Structures are given as structure tokens and as C-alpha cells.
């Protein structure tokens, strides 16, 4: 048990609750809050957006995927950042000028249809839940790795903290808290990099690129916590205590090349220089294959790469908790400036994960055996720097990880709760505050329960599924809604349903049936590349067929979306969120 790390996590949670309570005292009503946040400079607003955006998937997951997957996994951080270029160039200013606060508000205002609004609300809830789930899992992983806590505990603690923040008065995502959490995360991931690189140099700078597949440098003991299967590609002598290949073992053992099953609780001890057995779902890559793209031996690797780019580039603009924040800009120009600043802030952060991924192969290779590569950021400071400095750095990354899952979970929960209380719970309960609290509870409990039953995916991969659904639904809706006046309510509704159902079914099937191979597997596990064009085409074709339903007064809406605020045209059309 690492006391410093425990204190750092607790402190991050307490500061989060404290700042939320403090800023909710500053602004008593939602209206106050908006006015207050409009005096916030663009860079601080951008910090808040980045703080909310950089989730457990970015803080922990990206480094883990790079450690396991190498050159092909750099698309995760690149995609998360490039998404903001598309958001900036095609969505930011018109969305702000629409005056809509949430995506359902935008749908209702642009298409004057409560039907489309309801579909959009359901999709916001779906994407929100898909996105919260890995945050809770990340919390569980962090607390388990650092403190030995049971895996479910982290998720429960995050849920409780988020509910305290929201119910305690911070009704809407709080700029101050989220901005603080961005800077905490940047420091927490960047500062250790300097120490890690210094320690690596002092160790004669071994290269992860020109080396063989990862080996244990020293005699290493690894405990296996779940029932797993591992692959070795050459005979290997080791010691084991526990159950291996369904036989009780206690002592020396020789493994032939192939797959071996390990029961939970088994302990393995490897001699110095032994190659690291890999979890059977991870490819065994030597330095060259790891550092070069498309060498991992995965089927249809090129398609998977492009589909991932597609999902991340286009998904960002459809993430409901990100879009909510653009409303807090004073005008369309400020929205562009904010989006540009977010590109800078997010890009700064993403310089770090590759370093952890690369060093992880050298200094924490046992994670490739247990499959817990998501823990590399948390374990590397102790493994490489060690000593007192290592402990303090571990506490720092622990605080950063806590900020990551708290910030994103809070933002998502507020967004999902807002939509739930407006469109579903609010119809049953009259008191808006009570209905918001009920909705907030529902917004965290569902993913918490799902997390207890669902098999764990790598964090960044799980988040990319939420991106895929967003890319297949809200991205075509926003693009057409902003730039094409002929989009009709029927076209939008059909497209949202087609894209949403296609992406969701693909994700569920690929998760439930892991044994599918070949093209079906590639298409199902990365659905955005076909589901987004499908949704877009559906919207266009159905809108053309229902041309008589073009939104009445669409030209007035287009005026509002696109003319700069400096021009004195009438902006009488009021979106629901602005009343």
C-alpha cells in the first residue's frame, strides 16, 4: 500500500469537491453561472474543455496501448487531438451561434422537431454511458494497482465523488474545477517524463526500437490475478506456484512454445534474460515490428488504422460533454479561439504517453504478461526511478489519474443527467432540482453496474467505441445541419437511427463474439468507417425524398448560425437553452 499515492488521490478528490462547492457559492443560479463563465478568458475555458476531455483513456490507456501495440497505436493520441481541428473548422463557431446548450437543443432548434430531439437525447445517454464506463474501470484499476483495493472500489468512489460534486450544488460543469484538473494532469504526466528520461539515460539508454521482443532484465516474480492464457514462442524454463495448464505446480517448470493457461492466484518466477510471455490476445513484437506501422500481424491492419482515424477524427465533434462547453464562449469568434487553444493544450499533453509506452517495454514488461498495460503510467516511476523520488512521482501520477477520471466522469454525468432530467425523468417529477438529482444518480449507477458485469476492454479501446457511435450519429447531423439547409427532420431522425443502431450492434456483436475472424471482425470492431458514411447518406437521401418537410424558416436559422455577431441582423430565433 502506497500511502503517498493514497493521500494524493484523496487530496485530488477533496480539492475537486471543495472547488465545486466554492464556485457554486459564487454562482447560485444557472443563469449566474453562464454570465460568470462568459467573463472567463478563452485560454481558461479551453483548459476546462481539455480538463474534461483528457480522460482515464488518455492519461492511462494511451500509454498502455502504445506499449502493447506500438506504431499503430499512436493514432489514438493523434486522433484525439486532430478531432479538434475538424471541430474547429466545421462546427465550433456556428454551433456557438446557434445558442443551443446541448445537442438535443441543437436538434430541436435546427429542425423544429421534438422527435429528433428525443432520439438525440437517447444517443447522448448511450454515448455518455459508454464513455463513463471506462472511467470507472480506470479508477478501479488505479486504486487496485497502487493501493491493492478491490477492483470495484474505484468505480464506486468515483461515482460517490461525482454525485457529491453535482448534488452539492455544482449543477453545471464547473469551469474552475475542470480547468484546474487540466493543469494538474499536464504536470502529473510531464514532470515524471523528465525524471524517467534522466533515469533511462543513466541506465545507458537501452533502445526499445532496435531490441528483441521484451525480456525480463532481472529475475522477476509475477502474480496472476485472473485466469489468463499466455503465449511463448520459444521453450522457456521458469518456476511456478499455483495452477498451470490445469495442473498444480510448485517448483521448476519447462514451457514448450505455444499457449499456456494460468489460474488466478498463480505466481511465476522468471530468470534474468527470459523472454516475456505475452497475454494470448497481445501480439509478440520485437523492437522493429513494434516501432513500425502495420507490422503487428493483425488482419486487415490498414482498414483498422483508417477506421480508427475516421472514428476519432469525426467522433470528437459529436461528444456531448465537449460540445456543451462551447456554449460558455461569448460569441462565435471566441468559440474558434477556444477550440484552437484546446488543440494546443491537448497536443502538449499527448507528447508524453509515447514515452511511457516505449519505456514500459523496457522496465515493466510483466504488464504484457498480465495484460494490464493500462497500469504502465502508474508503475513506471517506481520501476525506473525508484526510491523516494519514485514514490513522490507515483503519488503525482496517481493524482493526475484521479483528476482524469473525476473530470471526465463529472462532465459526462452532468451532461447525461441534464438530458435525462429534461426529457425523461422531468416528465414524471415536477421539481427540477429533484428530477436532476434522480437523473444524476441514474447517470452514474447504470455504467457502474455495467462495469461490474462487463468484461474489461483496454481503456482507450473502450473509449474509441464511444467515439465510433458519436461519429456515426452526431457528426453527420452537425455537418449537414450546419452546412446544408435542405436537411429535414425525417432525414435527420432516420440517419441518427441507422447510424446509431449500426454502430451499437457492431460493437455489441464484436464484444460478445470475440471469435469472429477476417473481414467481419475488422468491420465489426471498427464500425465508424462504414457506419458514418451510411448515416450521412441516409440523411441526405431521406431528406431529398422528404423535401416538402424542409424546416420552416430555415433561412433565418442559417442567418443565425453563420453571420458574425458584429452584423446587426435579427437574431430573434431563440434556442431552447437560451430562454
Amino acid at each position, binding site marked *: 500500500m502506497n500511502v503517498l499515492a493514497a493521500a494524493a488521490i484523496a487530496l485530488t478528490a477533496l480539492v475537486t469537491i471543495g472547488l465545486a462547492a466554492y464556485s457554486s457559492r459564487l454562482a447560485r443560479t444557472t443563469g449566474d453561472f453562464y454570465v460568470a463563465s462568459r467573463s472567463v478568458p478563452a485560454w481558461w475555458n479551453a483548459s476546462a474543455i481539455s480538463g474534461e476531455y483528457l480522460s482515464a483513456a488518455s492519461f492511462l490507456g494511451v500509454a498502455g496501448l502504445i506499449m502493447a501495440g506500438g506504431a499503430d497505436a499512436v493514432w489514438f493520441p493523434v486522433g484525439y*487531438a486532430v478531432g479538434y481541428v475538424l471541430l474547429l*473548422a466545421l462546427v465550433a463557431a456556428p454551433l456557438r451561434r446557434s445558442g443551443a446548450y446541448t445537442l438535443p437543443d441543437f436538434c430541436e432548434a435546427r429542425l423544429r422537431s421534438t422527435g429528433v430531439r428525443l432520439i438525440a437525447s437517447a444517443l447522448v445517454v448511450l454515448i455518455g454511458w459508454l464513455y463513463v464506463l471506462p472511467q470507472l474501470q480506470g479508477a478501479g484499476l488505479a486504486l487496485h494497482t497502487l493501493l491493492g483495493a478491490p477492483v470495484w472500489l474505484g468505480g464506486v468512489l468515483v461515482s460517490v465523488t461525482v454525485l457529491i460534486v453535482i448534488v452539492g450544488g455544482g449543477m453545471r460543469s464547473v469551469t474552475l474545477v475542470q480547468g484546474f484538473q487540466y493543469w494538474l494532469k499536464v504536470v502529473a504526466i510531464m514532470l515524471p517524463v523528465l525524471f524517467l528520461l534522466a533515469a533511462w539515460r543513466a541506465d545507458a539508454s537501452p533502445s526499445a526500437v532496435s531490441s528483441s521482443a521484451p525480456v525480463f532484465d532481472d529475475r522477476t516474480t509475477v502474480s496472476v490475478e485472473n485466469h489468463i492464457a499466455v503465449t511463448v514462442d520459444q521453450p522457456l524454463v521458469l518456476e511456478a506456484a499455483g495452477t498451470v495448464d490445469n495442473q498444480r505446480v510448485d517448483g521448476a517448470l519447462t514451457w514448450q512454445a505455444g499457449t499456456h493457461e494460468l489460474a488466478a492466484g498463480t505466481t511465476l518466477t522468471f530468470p534474468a534474460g527470459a523472454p516475456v510471455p505475452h497475454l494470448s490476445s497481445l501480439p509478440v513484437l520485437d523492437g522493429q515490428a513494434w516501432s513500425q506501422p502495420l507490422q503487428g500481424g493483425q488482419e486487415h491492419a490498414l482498414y483498422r488504422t483508417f477506421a480508427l482515424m475516421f472514428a476519432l477524427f469525426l467522433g470528437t465533434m459529436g461528444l456531448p460533454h465537449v460540445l456543451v462547453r462551447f456554449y460558455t464562449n461569448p460569441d462565435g469568434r471566441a468559440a474558434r479561439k477556444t477550440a484552437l487553444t484546446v488543440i494546443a493544450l491537448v*497536443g502538449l499533453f499527448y507528447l508524453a504517453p509515447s514515452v511511457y509506452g516505449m519505456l514500459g517495454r523496457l522496465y515493466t514488461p510483466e504488464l504484457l504478461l498480465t495484460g494490464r498495460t493500462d497500469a504502465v503510467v502508474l508503475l513506471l516511476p517506481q520501476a525506473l526511478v525508484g526510491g523516494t523520488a519514485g514514490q513522490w512521482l507515483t503519488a503525482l501520477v496517481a493524482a493526475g489519474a484521479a483528476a482524469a477520471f473525476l473530470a471526465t466522469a463529472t462532465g459526462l454525468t452532468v451532461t447525461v443527467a441534464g438530458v435525462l432530467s429534461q426529457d425523461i425523468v422531468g416528465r414524471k417529477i415536477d421539481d427540477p432540482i429533484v428530477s436532476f438529482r434522480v437523473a444524476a444518480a441514474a447517470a452514474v449507477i447504470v455504467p457502474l453496474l455495467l462495469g461490474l458485469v462487463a468484461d474489461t476492454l483496454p481503456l482507450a479501446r473502450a473509449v474509441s467505441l464511444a467515439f465510433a457511435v458519436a461519429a456515426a450519429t452526431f457528426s453527420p447531423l452537425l455537418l449537414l445541419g450546419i452546412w446544408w439547409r435542405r436537411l429535414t427532420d425525417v432525414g435527420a431522425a432516420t440517419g441518427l437511427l441507422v447510424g446509431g443502431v449500426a454502430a451499437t450492434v457492431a460493437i455489441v456483436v464484436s464484444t460478445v463474439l470475440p471469435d469472429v475472424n477476417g473481414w467481419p471482425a475488422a468491420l465489426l470492431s471498427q464500425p465508424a468507417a462504414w457506419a458514418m458514411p451510411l448515416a450521412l447518406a441516409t440523411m441526405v437521401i431521406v431528406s431529398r425524398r422528404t423535401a416538402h418537410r424542409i424546416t420552416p424558416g430555415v433561412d433565418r436559422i442559417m442567418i443565425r448560425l453563420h453571420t458574425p455577431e458584429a452584423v446587426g441582423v435579427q437574431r430573434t430565433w431563440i434556442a431552447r437553452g437560451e430562454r
Partner: protein
Amino acid sequence: MSAPKPRREVITGPRRDVRRRPPRPVTDEIDDQTGVGRIYLRSLIRTQLRLGLATVALVVVPLVAMPLLFGLWAPVRELQVGPMPLWWFLLGILVYPAILGVGWWYVRQADRNEAQFTDLVEGR
């Protein structure tokens, strides 16, 4: 008999202080969605859309080319920038300042387009 009362004469002439009716402001044209107003607005939308798509292409086309180039052409995989393979230098480091630069260019152009539009419709 008294002399007949002189008839009142109304003298007419062009008034000199009259001003020509001011031209309708373009903002009204836009508000009333007349043909002229529509043309102004559509040209703004088209300009901004073209700029947005150009920005996206500037970023996405090179990125899409990367896996094709590196996947299909082995020699480029061996290139190094200092101790780093070229791939990692480009996608681990250089990509972030590059997209920031493109974004900055976009914001400048978009602001400029809007300022021109504002001058056009307000400045007659």
C-alpha cells in the same frame, strides 16, 4: 367696387433640401430574405465551408498518406531523425505543432472572411 382680391398663387418648385431615400441596408435584405440578402448569406456560407474543408484536407490528407507510405514502401520505415524512427518523430511530436499551425491559419482566415462580410453589409 373694390379691386378683385389677388388670387393666392401657389408657387411650386423642386425642394432643394430633399434627400434621396437612403439605400436599404443589406442587413435588412438579409433579414427579409430577399434575393439580394440570400446571395450575400450564401456567399458567406460557401466561403466559410470552402475554408473549413480546405483546413480539414490540409490535416487529414497527409495523415491518411502516412500509413500508406510507411506500409507499402519499406525504405521510408528505416529513416531516422536523430535517435528516433521517422514515424515516431512525425506522429509522436511534429503532428501537434503542425495541426496547431493549420488551426491558427484557419482562425485567421475565418476571422478575415467574417470581417469582410461585416464591412460589406454594414459599411455602405
